[in-house]
């Protein structure tokens, strides 16, 4: 698939955001901090916008979203490959 191929090519220094299964309780802190990366459904659960890749411009917002989540439901993997 195209996206996989592109991912493969850019992986080494690309940051990715992940949601830890079942931890989100709908505080919506991430949505307020980085509305370009996160949304939530009507039950409050976080929804990633896009495929989880974080552009360099969005990296600082992604870091803040992780640090402010009281449930520690977000993980940011910065660079270094898979």
């Amino acid at each position: 698939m195209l996206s996989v191929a592109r991912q493969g090519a850019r992986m080494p220094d690309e940051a990715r955001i992940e949601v830890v299964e079942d931890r989100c309780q709908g505080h919506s802190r991430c949505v307020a901090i980085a509305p370009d990366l996160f949304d939530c459904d009507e039950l409050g659960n976080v929804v990633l916008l896009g495929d989880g890749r974080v552009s360099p411009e969005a990296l600082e917002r992604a870091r803040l979203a992780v640090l402010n989540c009281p449930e520690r439901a977000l993980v940011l993997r910065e660079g270094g490959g898979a």
Partner: protein
Amino acid sequence: MSRSPVEDWTTDFDHTDPRWTADPYTLWSELRRTCPIAHTDRFQDGVWLPTRYADVRAIAYDTETFSSRRVVIRDRKIEPPHPAPPITSDPPDHKRLRLPLLPPFSLRSVAKLEPFTRAACEELVNALADGETCDGAQQYAQHVPVRVMCHLLGVPASDGERFRHWITEALQEGIHDMPRALRALQAINAYFREKVEACPGGTDDLIGYLLAVEPEGRKLDRDDIVAILRLLMIAGIDTTWSAIGSCLWHLATHVDDRRTLAAAFRDGDTRAVDTAIEELLRAYAPVAMAREVVRDTELGGCPMKAGSMVLLSFPAANRDPEVFPDPDVVRLDRAENPHVAFGLGIHRCLGSNLARMELRTALDVWLARIPEFELVPGEPVTWSEGTVRGPRRLPLRLLGGG
């Protein structure tokens, strides 16, 4: 009721003691250093008080050991417990009753309530702004959530006075006076039972919604609906009233923060406003909950027997220096702030989006019209007693310039 003053806060704490009411932060800070899980036998079966973020977290997540069947600490336990689902529910029942309540309090649903909230705040503030003094708690803060809750529930705003009376009886006076607490809970039940019976169904308020919704394929029964409405009323008014009042108190006493926040609102700097609001929520989180230990356990070297209670103080966790450097200093630009003002885990405050919207709107409208104000010298500020903290008398002098 007169109680002996606390001498040893580590073994005999009392969250209704005047010293706690006046300044709990100093007490928590001292306890965190000397005895991070304090205890008292002043309430039936004993109560533990963790003041560290990590311990509060561990308890909130361990729902099998720490049950929500009782969430208020009283001199004598009410038997049987008075369920107010889903806040008093444990897994697995919890989910069925909580899920249908989430959509009406989602970010998007709450955003639709903002114009109503703004108009209500403007009406309230316009009635005050030309005076020389006012009471920020009595004449402003308390009316905001009452108006919004009445609007949401589809009941007249004039019923707000009764709500406030019942809430004080249930949560404050009712700590030491169980008959009074029970009377208030029954009065609220009777009020909502009548509203539910009278609801024709199909209305677009919350009562109509609860009558129609079918979680897991079956409708909610009437007793559950009444209990849910009682919970929403109790949880939605006192708490937000306290948060708005505490913020006004802070802004009245911290001129730099007042001007910084007013400027952020004026400039439409959403990021700065959000960061500031979260910091105020951290520092002045109004709500502590309780849990009941339902199986013997040990935490931090403290043996906790089944039947004992835990005062789960999210406000104390928010002042833990391990997580928040200089925790007693309000820094409106605190960027790293995983505060737990709305709790943690499956009982995350259902109304957190609503509370934030009300708090933000109430402060925005107030600061736009009354940018300069201070405490009235010599007139005392009084604070609520118990597990919801906020000013109940907040005499303010309005300095003009608006």
